[in-house]
């Protein structure tokens, strides 16, 4: 699965990368991301997740062809 991260998350991860291993939901995804960089925990706890133009929660079933967008808290305006 493809991961895109934005803004402050780019201090912890590459902007776009292919995730090793399958996450079936966002909780599993967070664990895999923490395995890459365990300093990202606090940041990830504040983030929302999206697939295409919709936010998703942990009930959303991810599959390996999804591109998952990780959305830090807004700081527009």
């Amino acid at each position, binding site marked *: 699965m493809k991961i895109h991260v934005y803004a402050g998350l780019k201090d912890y991860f590459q902007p776009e990368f292919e995730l090793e291993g399958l996450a079936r939901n966002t909780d599993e995804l967070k664990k895999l991301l923490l395995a890459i960089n365990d300093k990202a925990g606090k940041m990830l706890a504040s983030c929302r997740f999206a697939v295409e*133009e919709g936010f998703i929660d942990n009930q959303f079933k991810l599959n390996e062809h999804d591109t998952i*967008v990780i959305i830090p*808290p*807004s*700081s*527009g*305006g």
Partner: protein
Amino acid sequence: MIPSSSSRRAAAVRALSAEPVDMAGMLARAHHPGAGAVVLFSGEVRNSNRGRAVAFLEYEAYPPLADKLIAEILAVATEKWGLHIALAQHRVGRVEVGDTAVVVITASAHRAEAYAANRYIIDRIKHEAPIWKCEHYTDGSHEWGNNCNCHAVTGDPSKHIYETGH
């Protein structure tokens, strides 16, 4: 005066723009023969923030979701306050001190609604739209902004607190 519907006019303004905001052009679209009140908010880049001298800002967005969310916020406000016109545009890319980062325009029959809806729209855009600013300081350093800190209180990144209570 202008025969086209407000929704068609609204659709002609892009929610995200890599170019400077055309405020005069947006205002020119904001007249409606039934609207006695037009309110415009312009969010501009200040020369300092939390005591640090700002050189410029850089905005990043996730366009598919930002476009959709801003359109949705404008639609909700239009319905809730019976607006004739609701427009919003947010900059992406580099924005200089004194320049506009975001504009919201609302028009309604009477002024209370135009003010309230305008505030509602900008508050929700700032808290919810997937748009982020990076502050570049005059000393050459930079930092990603973190305006919305509601999750620290609500425990849920999708739950926000609005001071105006909407």
